């Protein structure tokens, strides 16, 4: 069992995740441009497997692009039946995601 509070994606490196308990949480972050606090909706998952190893961790994203890719599997209830492979491309505002979700 690997202890890791939060999963961080490394650009260009695929992460194989088993995502469970999807939920949207309201969080306050500091806007990187205005430096002012602001409320945002964050898509959050519990992660119990990372790259084939059991973990107890959390994965969250602010990215609407990534959320859009994952949403159909959340809506149809199959996300926990899949291994979701996410590769981040770029960083910050230009970050994009390559996503695959084969059934387990």
């Amino acid at each position, binding site marked *: 069992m690997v202890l890791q509070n939060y999963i961080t994606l490394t*650009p*260009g*490196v695929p992460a194989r995740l088993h995502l469970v308990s999807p939920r949207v949480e309201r969080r306050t972050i500091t806007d990187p441009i205005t430096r002012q606090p*602001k*409320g945002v909706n964050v898509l959050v998952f519990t992660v119990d497997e990372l790259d084939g190893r059991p973990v107890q961790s959390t994965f969250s994203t602010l990215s*609407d*692009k990534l*959320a*859009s*890719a*994952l*949403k*159909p*599997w959340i809506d*149809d209830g*199959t996300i926990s039946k*899949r291994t979701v*492979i996410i*590769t981040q*491309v*770029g960083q910050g505002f*230009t970050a*994009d*995601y*390559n*996503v*695959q*979700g*084969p*059934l387990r």
Partner: protein
Amino acid sequence: MPREERERRYIAEYMAAAYPAGNYQLNVPLGPIPRDLVQQLGQLQAAQVFYPTRPRIDAVAWTPTEYLIIEAKIREPKHAIGDLLVYRSLIPSTLDLPMRDHQPIVAVLVVPEVLDWIRASAEEHQLRVALYKPEWIAAYWAERQNYFTRAYRVARDEKVNMRKILGLE
């Protein structure tokens, strides 16, 4: 006001509906990785470094008999047809396509309406056309049609002001 990723939503929903087993990948890089970079860093790391600069197709899907390269467009299908031709031309030089095993390539255009000129152009270019029109498309089209009208601008400004007053911006 946050921008909605409708094109991403469209392709993600289509792929989930058309390939429920998940035999597909979204936002896939195409084209060659420079040989000198591969020699310098090795195939894997070169691919990681070069990844952001490669063109990316909306999705690829694989079956035992076909390898599908898929581009979807809610609006501007003409652009998707052009993109598909470019993407198809890049397939032979793309050495890291996921799950490619010599299946023949099938280029697929996904649109919510198949107009006659789309069908004609697709036939001319040997593209398969898939029709996908979820319920939310109609509301999106209505919004687009009204977007530049005065009434829509006024309503939109009011909504933005309310979001600021309520601290939602």
